[in-house]
């Protein structure tokens, strides 16, 4: 049962949640849903990758199950784990007369299974969005695990048998491209590169997130951010930082963006001292 009926439907419903999608994002989300394929979202930090998954979950009225990846993430944290401590207690508390077979069957039952995000997402009968966040941070072995889960949408627990998805979750994987993900994983996914938006869309995003900011100021702010991005910086300002900047200006009660206000608040968008110095020099801020 698809969640969306057309790319335009995606765009409208995402917009209702406050996420403004462009053509590419709307079409790709629609296709990921229609073809039942995982969606791999890649792009610089702060361009709304995680936000997209949350927005899809809200728009489709689905539960968001999140697997945050980090170095050293393993099966026990991603898929499932037996609750050893509880099993140990069960064995120690067993009646002396109880046969080993009974105990064995008992301790490997549902009661002692700790479902982790991947298993949780597969077992859910209601609409689910599975977000695998920062996939590039996880080790290569985790990709193998994801591959198995994402291609068949089933998990085999040796003691319980195979658990297949009753309803395929909508899967979103995000990556900052700190390393190349494996070809095999990419092949199974639809790929979406999210970059900094064009001026018009960025302005709309700032206005929708910070509605109190005057449109003229938002326009000025977005243009200035784009000028900053064109400089050779260590870290270009992201959309999240544009929004922060708008909030800052609002909080300070400033309504135009001239040399002195930019100079005072530049720290909100540029986080490296050398970037700061470069922008000050190139834009003639003092």
């Amino acid at each position, binding site marked *: 049962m698809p969640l969306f009926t*057309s*790319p335009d439907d995606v765009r409208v419903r995402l917009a209702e949640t406050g996420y403004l999608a462009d*053509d*590419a994002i*709307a*079409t*790709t989300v*629609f*296709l*990921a849903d*229609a*073809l039942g*394929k995982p969606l*791999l979202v*890649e*792009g610089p930090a702060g361009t709304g990758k995680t936000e997209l998954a949350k927005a899809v979950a809200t728009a489709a009225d689905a539960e968001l199950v999140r697997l945050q990846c980090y*170095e050293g993430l393993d099966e026990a944290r991603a898929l499932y784990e037996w609750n*050893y*401590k509880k099993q*140990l207690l069960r064995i*120690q508390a067993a009646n002396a007369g109880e046969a080993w077979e009974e105990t064995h069957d008992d301790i490997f039952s549902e009661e002692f299974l700790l479902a982790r995000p991947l298993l949780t997402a597969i077992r859910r009968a209601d609409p689910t969005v599975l977000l695998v966040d920062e996939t*590039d941070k996880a*080790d290569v072995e985790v990709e193998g695990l994801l591959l198995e889960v994402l291609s068949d949408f089933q998990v085999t627990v040796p003691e319980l048998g195979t658990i297949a998805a009753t309803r395929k979750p909508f899967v979103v994987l995000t990556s900052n*491209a*700190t*390393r*190349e993900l494996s*070809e095999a994983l*990419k*092949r199974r*996914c*639809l*790929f*979406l*590169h999210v970059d900094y938006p064009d*001026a*018009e869309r960025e302005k709309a995003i700032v206005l929708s997130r910070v509605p109190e900011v005057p449109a003229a100021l938002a326009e*000025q702010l977005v*243009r*200035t951010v*784009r*000028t900053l991005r*064109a400089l*050779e910086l*260590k*870290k270009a300002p992201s959309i999240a930082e544009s929004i922060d900047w708008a909030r800052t200006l609002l909080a300070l009660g400033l309504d135009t*963006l*001239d*040399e002195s206000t*930019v100079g005072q608040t530049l720290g909100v968008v540029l986080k*490296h*001292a*050398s*970037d700061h*110095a*470069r922008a000050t020099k*190139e*834009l*003639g*801020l003092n």
Partner: protein
Amino acid sequence: MSVDATAPGGLIDRHVAFVAALRGAGLPVSLAESLDATQAMAAIDLRHREQLRAAYAAAVVKRAPHRATFDRLFDLWWPPAIGDGEPAYDDTTGDEAPDDADPTDNETLRQLLREALRDVLLSDDDEAIRRLARQAVTGLGRADTQPGRQSWFTYRVLRAMSPETLLASLLESVLAGQERGGLAEKVARQMLAERIRKFEEAVEAEVRRRLAEDRGVDNISKTAVKPLIDQVDFLRASRDEIAELRRTVYPIARRLATRLTAKRRLGRSGRLDVRRTVRASLSSGGVPLTTIHKPHKPHKPELVVLCDVSGSVAAFAHFTVLLAFALREQFARVRVFAFVDTCDEVTRFFEHGDDVVDALARMSREADVVWFDGHSDYGHSFDVFNQKWSDAITPKTSLLILGDARNNYRAQSVAALRSIARHARHAYWLNPEPRQYWGSGDSAASAYGEVMPMIECRNAAQLQEFVEGILPV
């Protein structure tokens, strides 16, 4: 639409040929991905071109750097219009004046188009920019190459339109009386430059489309594709390409650092941490279910880079030095020495995470690298290094020498190099020249190559390969 997709020249054939062109341009499109693309096409509205583009991109482009190549080929294989025309399904007729102008009168047409360009650049309408580019190419881009043969030229259109000359009057309109020279002007300039670039790109795309109509898509596809930025030859890179390369330093460094850290961690695990293992076992009734090991103390080498910064190889040296500094967390210490015909330490320009462009400019201005005539002299540079800084090389040092080894037929001082290299733990020479030219003419590559391994490093991809695969960290 009731079109038979399987007919010869139908949708399926077009799709297969397009995928073949993508593969030809170096995109690894598997059969499974090609099938995904066809499924995606069935799911969307084919009359909506941007949806088709997004569908293809989602299914077959799995690396961001491939996107530019994909877009060029997509525009060729799924053109937005045919011939001079407006798109067939677009019923807004072109209300622009140039259509009515007498096409034989080039000057009038040019003036009208420039007027239109001025208006278009002031509005932020991508579709209008593309439409104008199409009209401009139709009107101004055609020229006779030989009797009876015509072709299309980007250069003719851009020269006739010369969008840069409109900049002054455009700035005036955008600034509307605001003070010149300040932040407002910088921002306006950036915005206009962006739109002018959009227009130029639209003209280029339009010319490619017209050429493709005349000569066949296949022929144009092959020449339309630019190499990926990490494949661009250091010695032949244009200024824009070098600037773009510099932008990739930090992403590359981040990627390399991740891989190097992972590699370092993969070795044997450290000694058993008894205290933490016993502590952890208490929560499982004294049974040590998991053992905990002490982390390894990472071994970090010192890196000494000795680089030729003379004109011909400067781009390569700059890029590599920036990369070395971006990776400095992976090393106990990084020291950089630059030379042309004598040698000087330049570490101080990069040390404090200073601004990249400044650091490079200050290095070439302030460092004492020219002694005699400003032509590369490897021999003298090695002698100077050996006398002044031989203590920089310790048994913990990894030594990198960057340069093309073109010595202008001067003394080679192989003995000095040998003595430098002997004290280092590892020594490598990275040469940006193609291997087949090594040792030809004034190249001392064969002599130096006997002292230390010399590695061909012509583009960013090869440099990454070296750092990841060979550099011992």
